[in-house]
């Protein structure tokens, strides 16, 4: 059961990201504020912290697979999200034993991961010329709203999934 349900949930988040911008009022999107949903990444953070232990790398493998799915479905430039999500989750996976796993450390890891992810994604897009404007200006109007919006999302899904993930983890270990 748990072998199927994690990929299905991640797939659901990939699909939901596509309609995320419809849910927001268009006055927010029309203006200069740019909010990028990173819901898959947020859920992967939960998986790293509460489902993986130090030796298992489920979250990194999921990050690579679903990053590639986002690339195929939404951008057409393969490898960008795959590389970024894989790297970010790898870093978080290594950092998580520094702090106890509770909601504050989770939010902190979430914010760190969004900052790293946005920086790498923007850097890659800048290098290959998708983003050709003065990107530092845009980064500020894009980074801070994205951090806020995604942190709220992480705080929302935290109570929904942590207990379940820990339960699945104990099944896996036993």
């Amino acid at each position, binding site marked *: 059961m748990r072998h199927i349900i994690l990929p299905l949930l991640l797939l659901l988040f990939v*699909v939901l990201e596509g309609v995320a*911008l419809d849910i927001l009022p268009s006055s927010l999107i029309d203006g200069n504020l740019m909010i990028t949903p990173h819901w898959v990444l947020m859920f992967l953070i939960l998986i790293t912290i509460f489902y993986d232990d130090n030796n298992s790398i489920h979250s990194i493998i999921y990050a690579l697979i679903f990053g590639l799915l*986002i690339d195929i479905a939404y951008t057409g430039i393969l490898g960008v999200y*795959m590389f970024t999500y894989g790297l970010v989750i790898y870093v978080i996976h290594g950092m998580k034993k520094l702090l106890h796993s509770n909601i504050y450390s989770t939010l902190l890891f979430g914010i760190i991961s969004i900052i790293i992810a946005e920086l790498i994604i923007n850097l890659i897009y800048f290098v290959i010329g998708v983003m050709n404007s003065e990107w530092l200006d845009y980064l500020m109007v894009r980074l801070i709203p994205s951090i806020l919006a995604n942190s709220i999302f992480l705080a929302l899904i935290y109570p929904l999934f942590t207990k379940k993930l820990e339960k699945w983890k104990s099944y896996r270990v036993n």
Partner: protein
Amino acid sequence: MSFFRKKKLFLLLIGIIILVVLIGFSLRDRSNLTTGEQFVHDIIGLAQNIISTPVKYVTGIISNIDDAKNTYTENQILREKLAQYKALIYEVQELKGENAELREIIDKSETIRSYNPIHATVTARSPERWIEQVTINKGSLAGVEENMAVITAEGMVGKVQSVSELTSTVQLLTGFDAFNRISATISKEDDKNVFGLIEEYDAKSGSLLFRIIEESEHNVEEGELVFSSGMGGVFPAGLLIGKVKEVIPDQYGLTRTALVEPAANMYEINNVIVVERKLGKGEEQ
């Protein structure tokens, strides 16, 4: 320990190599998606179809409430316009009939204006904001092909970028770069049409750059409508693109560029029409 450090570095390097290879592969000028990509598009497209219907329903209700507030004033304006349109419709019908008759005489039935519409619904929008693309729920099975123009009732919104069996992705006008030019025209009386190319979208001014090729004394004025001219060989003629906002000379003062505000709202797209040009595509392209 040093072995593990080396291993990490090694993994990172392999990761970067794979990244570069994949990016190189996808930025190459490729005509079709690979089978794997098409498969993923179809699977995700199916799920998006299921998810987007209730989401659209709910957001629809909210925007309906907004609309209801303005109904009364809008209604009055529309009534006035309707009265004008009645006369116009009669005139158009007469002209259409006459046009068809004349065409029959010279035995030429299809023009670059005629097209087959394929109706589709937008199911998703790319969450990556630098990449302006939406997904629609019709694919090659419905006859959608690459590079077809996509319009809404308000005007042109973009072109089909890639096609899979059941879905296709549409590149919006706001995501057009120097590689996606549209030949366009401003229609005027007495054969004084202004021709040019829509070159790219300028994010700063929020408008399309319409470079006027034909150096002429015909003035372009604010508020004039820009249509596709069909001379590019891909899009049919007569699709509304936008309205002229401002005319600026280029840095050498040799040509002029008009800033064109897109007619369609790029952020609230629900139902679109994919336009299949009836007359064969230009071979010389």
